[in-house]
């Protein structure tokens, strides 16, 4: 199955306003994606619409967010259950300073329904770093039963490498790396699942960098097992 675990909707201040949950699901389905996550910056408020949209197009959804840690590392926290994702949202929102959204540099942050109707416009900047450390975000995600995946770990900004210079020891389900660097990172982290993701912020980016995942079920436990098997298959293929 093709999986794409990192996508931003119109709720993210840096994403195109065209990125409605419906458009993301529709486009991903057309590109053959089977498992897809919605991961707006520090917020899961568009996940209810995403659930309905994924149902509409026959996709398996994961509900989550891309959390900005206090170190300014971006990390993905993913859940198969909407209520749990919303619980994570409360924990993250409580630790995010309320900086006003500057519309000269960012776009509106609409919470929408599955039919692209705007329900609410969030007026504080969702991109601002939270007060939670990467370790705390990992722990909280685990406690809630979610998948914990550092985003684009070798990107020039907002990654564990740009902020810390190394991948801190942790219980990761996978690491997301920049396209074109998968092989190098498989060699460097042979016991981890190394994946790509589209990190889509505009319609053209939807479904551009999925990865293949063998799944026996659609729940978190099956996905976690699939990622573990992916890591194992890397390990066995290294000469």
């Amino acid at each position, binding site marked *: 199955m093709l999986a794409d675990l990192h996508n931003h909707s119109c709720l993210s201040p840096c994403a195109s306003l065209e990125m409605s949950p419906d458009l993301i699901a529709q486009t991903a389905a057309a590109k053959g994606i089977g498992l897809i996550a919605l991961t707006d910056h520090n917020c899961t408020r568009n996940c209810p619409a995403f659930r309905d949209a994924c149902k509409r197009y026959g996709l398996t959804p994961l509900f989550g967010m891309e959390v900005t840690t206090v*170190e300014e590392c971006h990390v993905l926290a993913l859940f198969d259950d909407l209520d749990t994702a919303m619980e994570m949202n409360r924990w993250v929102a409580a630790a995010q300073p309320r*900086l006003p959204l500057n519309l000269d540099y960012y776009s509106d942050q609409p919470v929408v329904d599955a039919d692209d109707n705007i329900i609410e416009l969030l007026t504080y900047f969702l991109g*601002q*770093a939270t007060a939670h450390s990467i370790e705390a975000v990992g722990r909280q995600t685990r406690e809630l039963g979610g998948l914990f995946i550092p985003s684009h770990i070798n990107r020039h*900004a907002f990654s564990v490498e740009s902020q810390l210079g190394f991948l801190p020891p942790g219980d990761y389900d996978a690491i997301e790396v920049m396209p074109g660097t998968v092989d190098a990172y498989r060699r460097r982290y042979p016991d981890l699942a190394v994946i790509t993701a589209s990190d889509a912020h505009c319609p053209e980016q939807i479904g551009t960098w999925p990865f293949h995942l063998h799944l026996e079920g659609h729940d978190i436990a099956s996905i976690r097992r699939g990622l573990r098997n992916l890591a194992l298959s890397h390990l066995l293929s290294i000469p």
Partner: protein
Amino acid sequence: MTLHDIAAFDDVETLHFNTDLPVTGGYTSDLLSDVMANAGEGCLLITIQAHNNTVAVAALAGAVGILVCNNRPVPDDMIESARREGIAVFRTSRNQFEASCMLGNRLGA
């Protein structure tokens, strides 16, 4: 003090500089969320974060220039963004502490 004076500092390389503007202070930080929340209007941002997002955050915070420390490589797209935003970009082999002292001494801070 103006950006022109910064450009004339010893061991400061000018990577992009268009309009001379007053420099009213400095802000030293490598956490862009901190810069966004706390840097003052008219400051010189002293940092090792040399990429596109640094320019975006500097513009948002009202900084007039960025001084990249430790001779970090500066990508072309960062200069391109700086040109667009009208923000000067300098580079030095000094670290953030040394660069801050240099600016502070001149500003009499």
